[in-house]
């Protein structure tokens, strides 16, 4: 996919390339490798022990974008996985079975530690239980994050996570890395995280402008979000977001819309909020359907799986472990359904969206179960057009362009009629 590159994008490319080079050099450098998940990730802690994170979900989505996921999924199904289960898991397992060649074409090192941050998705637990058999030499640390069932953070949940950090996670980090836990080092990383978080929120908030200078879904996952998870807690991450924020401000000042693979979007016709992960196997084709129609995503739930900062949460050096606990508890899919509805409602209003879309992922129960109810509830509350499409994350068998296009055509028609009607009545 060729996209007109801004400085921040080049910076991101370089950071990711450097990260993968570092990963290929662990035999020489002796650095330890931690496989972990995006939601509830403890990136600061991993870096505080000078270890290197690998995110199997990110590998899977990149395999999807590079059209390799279909093969990997087949391999995993031959190994014994059902067609019905999360395609990220199968893509990751298949990639491992075929030699663990990462996105840069080089072999990824096996994990020294599997950090099972079980946050907001039950499948995470099953995923790493399986990986434990595939990487028998790796240590495994479980961090169970209770769900926000009551719609708020219960004190015992906070304490439970802190207890697990001190009795399970940190001792295993120490054992694997051979280093003692240094709270000051963690605190300094948390401080840098908070700076990056301020900037990230400003970037996402810029979508309140008309036209929006960013696409908070496609752009959000393509260049706004990824750096955040992998590099949070580093100066390079802060620098990246400073650059990105500058570029976004420039776009706002000049009335420019978001960048798309075909250049800057000329006319913003529809402002949408979307629930659910994107499809990766046909990412560009999928995105194109929207920008061809002048549709911009002004907010998306998927870009909040790695953490929710809109409501003010920041990683904090004071009570660093408590702050990590609060962060994990607050991830989007760890919030209960009524909270998710309220959040989406709030984004639709705050970003002045004209419509709401659900991209329902066939193999992701964590997101998909309940989406029809979310959709109806928002339609009832806000009386806005809602749309529904179905794809999969990385299983190319479940991307049907014609089905998606048909459904979206009706959705856009509905949006057009509504815009016309609103224009007349106002």
């Amino acid at each position: 996919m060729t996209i007109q590159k801004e400085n921040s994008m080049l910076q991101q490319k370089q950071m990711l390339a450097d990260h993968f080079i570092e990963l290929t050099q662990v035999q020489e450098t002796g650095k330890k490798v931690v496989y972990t998940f995006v939601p509830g990730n403890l990136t600061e802690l991993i870096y505080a022990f000078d270890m290197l994170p690998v995110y199997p979900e990110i590998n899977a989505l990149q395999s999807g974008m590079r059209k390799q996921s279909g093969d990997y999924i087949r391999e995993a199904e031959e190994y014994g996985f059902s067609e019905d289960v999360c395609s990220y898991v199968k893509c990751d397992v298949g990639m491992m079975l075929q030699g663990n060649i990462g996105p840069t074409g080089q072999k990824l090192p096996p994990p020294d530690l599997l950090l099972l941050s079980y946050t907001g998705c039950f499948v995470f637990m099953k995923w790493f239980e399986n990986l434990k058999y595939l990487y028998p030499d790796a240590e495994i640390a479980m961090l169970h994050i209770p769900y926000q069932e009551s719609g708020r953070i219960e004190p015992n949940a906070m304490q439970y996570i802190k207890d697990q950090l001190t009795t399970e996670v940190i001792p295993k980090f120490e054992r694997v890395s051979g280093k003692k836990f240094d709270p000051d080092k963690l605190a300094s990383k948390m401080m840098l995280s908070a700076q990056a978080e301020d900037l990230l929120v400003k970037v996402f908030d810029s979508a309140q402008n008309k036209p929006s200078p960013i696409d908070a879904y496609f752009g959000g996952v393509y260049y706004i979000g990824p750096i955040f998870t992998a590099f949070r807690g580093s100066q390079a991450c802060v620098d990246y977001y400073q650059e990105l924020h500058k570029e976004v401000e420039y776009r706002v000042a000049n009335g420019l819309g978001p960048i798309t693979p075909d250049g800057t979007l000329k006319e913003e016709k529809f402002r949408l909020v979307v629930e659910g992960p994107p499809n990766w196997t046909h990412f560009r084709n999928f995105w194109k359907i929207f920008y061809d129609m002048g549709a911009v995503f002004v907010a998306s739930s998927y870009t909040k799986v790695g953490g929710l900062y809109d409501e003010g949460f920041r990683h904090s050096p004071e009570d660093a472990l408590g702050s990590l606990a609060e962060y994990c508890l607050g991830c989007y899919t760890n919030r209960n359904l009524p909270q998710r509805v309220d959040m989406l409602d709030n984004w639709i209003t705050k970003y002045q969206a004209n419509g709401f879309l659900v991209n329902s992922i066939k193999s992701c129960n964590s997101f998909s179960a309940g989406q029809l109810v979310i959709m109806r509830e928002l339609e009832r509350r806000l009386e806005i057009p809602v749309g529904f499409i179905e794809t999969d994350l990385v299983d190319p068998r479940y991307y049907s362009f014609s089905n998606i296009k048909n459904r979206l055509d009706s959705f856009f028609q509905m949006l057009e009629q509504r815009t016309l009607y609103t224009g007349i009545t106002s």
Partner: protein
Amino acid sequence: MKFDNFSEAIQHARTLFEDISFSYASNWKKQNSTRHIIGFLPIYIPREIIHSANMLPVGIFGAGDRIPVVHGDAYFQSYICHLPRTVIELAKSGHLNDFDGFIFPAICDVIRNLSGIFMLDNKQKFIRYLDYPQNFEGNVGGKFYRQELNRLSTDLEKLNGKKVITNELNHSISIYNEQRRLLKLLGDFRSEFPHKLSAVDYYLIQRTAHTMCVEDFNPYLENIFLLLDKLDVEPEDKIRVIISGSFCEQPPIGLIKTIENAGCYIVEDDLQLNLNWITKEIPTDTDDPIGALVDAYINHSIFSSTVYEGDKPKGDQLAEQVKDRKADGVVFCAPSFCDPALLDRPQLEKAMDKHHIRHFSFQYHENLGQFHVIKEQAGTFADTIKLWE
């Protein structure tokens, strides 16, 4: 209620099973104004606490093909398992109106999000998603779980004003201990004499434990034992199998029957796993009954696909079960789209291979109506094992 003949006793269980309006529970509730009904989804909940709050815990395991799905499909996409649809259907068609609250145990994302749907749809009812620790250290996961149970009993108290107090909770634990003891005996009996107690009858009896109050169920089960003693049935030439993976959405009765008719006596299964979740008698003479329930969960609970494996491989535990029950093989029988069961399957199958245990697998929906393929699979499996033996 006393039965003089086995088929009448089973008919009673079948009637309760088929009653999607849960009229037994409604009648139970009518007898006293503080009585409440708490529905719970699979798998495990500490029923003792509900009981001690003068409430009836009633298991809601979907409704199979006993209810047409009218609303449920508008709630769940086709690629989500079937159970939540019939649960919604039960609720929407008024069958759960007499229930005062619902507990959704933390077993998967579907049950989790179903709890949210209930919160949005039933604002006036008590809805609790009950998180269980996946950390099994007493001073970490145990501590968390104790607080969860305390919160649960406080919230129940708000419903009917009945406080959960020590000696009453001890009593509740003891009566459920007795239920567990009787059910274990029944499981052992079924395993030893599967020709006398068919898998369907065994299943129907188990289901009554999730419908009737424990005070009615325990004598009912004692009655069943007396009747079983009198049965005189000759064993058939069938292999012995364990069913694994059906702990939540239930297979249709016809499917259970098909497996046995095809030549496989079912000598162990996980269909009603809640009933034998706790593997040891829980102390009943303590000042801290909540602590006793916590200890039972942390240190004496059965393995399950919904619980973190830790350092006791589930495959080895399943292999042990095969050995204990003298089974010839394992049937992996999981609902379609069921994450916990299906994501466990690759490693469980590999463990069976490692232990030289034969196995085959298939998927089902709770409302499946055609069993030809499964019949053939099970028949071939039985024949192959008999041939090799």
